[in-house]
């Protein structure tokens, strides 16, 4: 097995453009992104950039961070989903951002960029290529994100009823409550903690003052979940440079497992697939973990499945304050990379896809 290192990272901070109704407090100005302009860096609103420009910004930053050039890259892999921006083949046009001429060895997954990173890691194991560039972008602000996510549902038994993501998460949350494993106050505490941490995080451009004991006064949208229990969607992009036998935090293990989609045949109070993926990636207790959460109860399920103490989880605030569909998982890898660069010996990055934590990808990073 070749040891693969995360040698460079780049990202545009998540931009929450549809401000959730419960988010009061500090100003919610239109966020701005710093990108290369004609005379040095310029600040632009996310709406001003097209997908290729977003990809250009993050891939150029990741290559610079890795100390490499485009000519060094042997394989490119990206993650995105055209339904989010409603622009068919946007992933083909976005390839302009990395320079698609002369032709490159390239692949794309209709998944979060963390899954593109998984493919790139596998590709590097072949031995003939040493450097892979991975990127992801998402513009949920342009489309009906909940409806797009519902297209992932089983077309025979779930999609005809059209349950929105919060309805399925509501059933999972209620299953936890019924089993005596959590309370609505526990869910509120997860949300409040995430927003508090996000306010102090360099890359999260949003904050909200959520008063924990007042959160339960809000009406449920799909009981026992309230609007604030769902991650707020954002736009963003991220890139990672992987180098076999390179420098920087190393991938100790990476693994993906999946549960059946049919909720009636699995125990919603636990995540067997997350537990299996964690074990396959190397298992054990990391010093810090960055989880990909779509709904607050998932924090409790994942903490239990991965054997994590609360204090180790999501020091950046994670994805509840700002979830960039197709990017958040790759951003978890970047956050974990930065924890290792900052001195952590071992960091876990998690990515989920599908309803109710159906799919779980776990990456374990260690100091080089």
């Amino acid at each position, binding site marked *: 097995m070749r040891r693969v290192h995360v040698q460079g990272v780049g990202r545009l901070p998540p931009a929450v453009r549809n401000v959730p109704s419960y988010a009061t407090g500090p100003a919610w100005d239109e966020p701005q992104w710093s990108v290369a302009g004609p005379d040095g860096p310029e600040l632009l609103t996310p*709406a001003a950039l097209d997908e290729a420009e977003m990809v250009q910004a993050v891939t150029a930053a990741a290559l610079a961070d890795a100390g490499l050039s485009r000519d060094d890259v042997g394989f490119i892999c990206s993650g995105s989903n055209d*339904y989010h921006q*409603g622009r*068919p083949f946007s992933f083909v046009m976005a390839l302009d951002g990395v320079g698609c001429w002369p032709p490159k060895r390239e692949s794309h997954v209709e998944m979060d960029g963390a899954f593109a990173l998984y493919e790139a890691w596998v590709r590097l194991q072949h031995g003939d290529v040493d450097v892979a560039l991975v990127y992801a972008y998402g513009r949920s602000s342009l489309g009906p994100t909940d*409806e797009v996510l519902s297209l992932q549902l089983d*077309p*025979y*038994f*779930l999609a*005809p*009823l*059209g*349950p*929105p993501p919060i*309805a*399925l998460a*509501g*059933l999972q*949350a*209620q*299953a936890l409550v*019924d089993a005596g494993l959590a309370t609505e106050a526990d869910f509120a505490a997860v949300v409040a903690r995430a927003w508090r941490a996000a306010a102090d995080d360099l890359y999260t451009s949003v904050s909200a003052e959520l008063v924990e004991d007042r959160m339960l006064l809000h*009406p*449920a*949208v*799909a*009981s*026992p*979940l309230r609007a604030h229990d769902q991650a707020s969607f954002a736009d963003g992009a991220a890139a990672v440079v992987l180098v076999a036998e390179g420098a920087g935090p190393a991938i100790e293990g990476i693994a993906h497992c999946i549960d*059946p989609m*049919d*909720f*009636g*045949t*699995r125990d*919603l109070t636990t995540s067997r697939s997350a537990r299996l993926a964690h074990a396959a990636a190397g298992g054990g207790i990391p010093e810090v973990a960055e989880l990909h959460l779509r709904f607050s109860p998932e924090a409790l399920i994942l903490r239990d499945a991965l054997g994590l103490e609360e204090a180790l989880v999501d020091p950046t605030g994670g994805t509840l304050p700002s979830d960039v569909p197709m990017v958040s998982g790759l951003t978890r890898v970047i956050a974990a990379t930065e924890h290792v660069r900052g001195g952590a010996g071992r960091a876990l990055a998690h990515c989920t896809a599908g309803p109710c934590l159906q799919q779980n990808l776990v990456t374990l990073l260690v100091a080089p």
Partner: protein
Amino acid sequence: MDQPALTSRFTLAYAYKRSLGPVIGAFMTGLRDRRILGARTADGRVIVPARAYDPASGEPTGDLVEVGPSGVIETVSHVAQPSPTDPVQVPFAWALIRLDGADTSFLHVVEGSAEALHRGLRVTARWRAERDGSLRDIEAFVP
């Protein structure tokens, strides 16, 4: 330089038709005929809706077995304010229902208020008059 953003409405629509295969086809035919079918797995459980393969083992399933149309609410999530895309337009709940004779639970909607619906409540299917072989042939479950 501050000009209004240029925006445009854009609709993506696809008229997909899906073929069903022998087992899901039989399940949908059953719904049209007001019967809910499960499939017996190799280890003797009845999974509902009927599927050609057991999600737990990947083994092919065997006989189709009629279940319900009544059962017990196993997990429930209440919706006070239905959205236009929800299957019913009165207060309702998304529910996992363990139908009589089934060993797994089945996702559908149950009509009623948060006070009226709870775990353990017995509910039964209310059939649509016009049925064409889809999950919507059951309008909703009711207490």
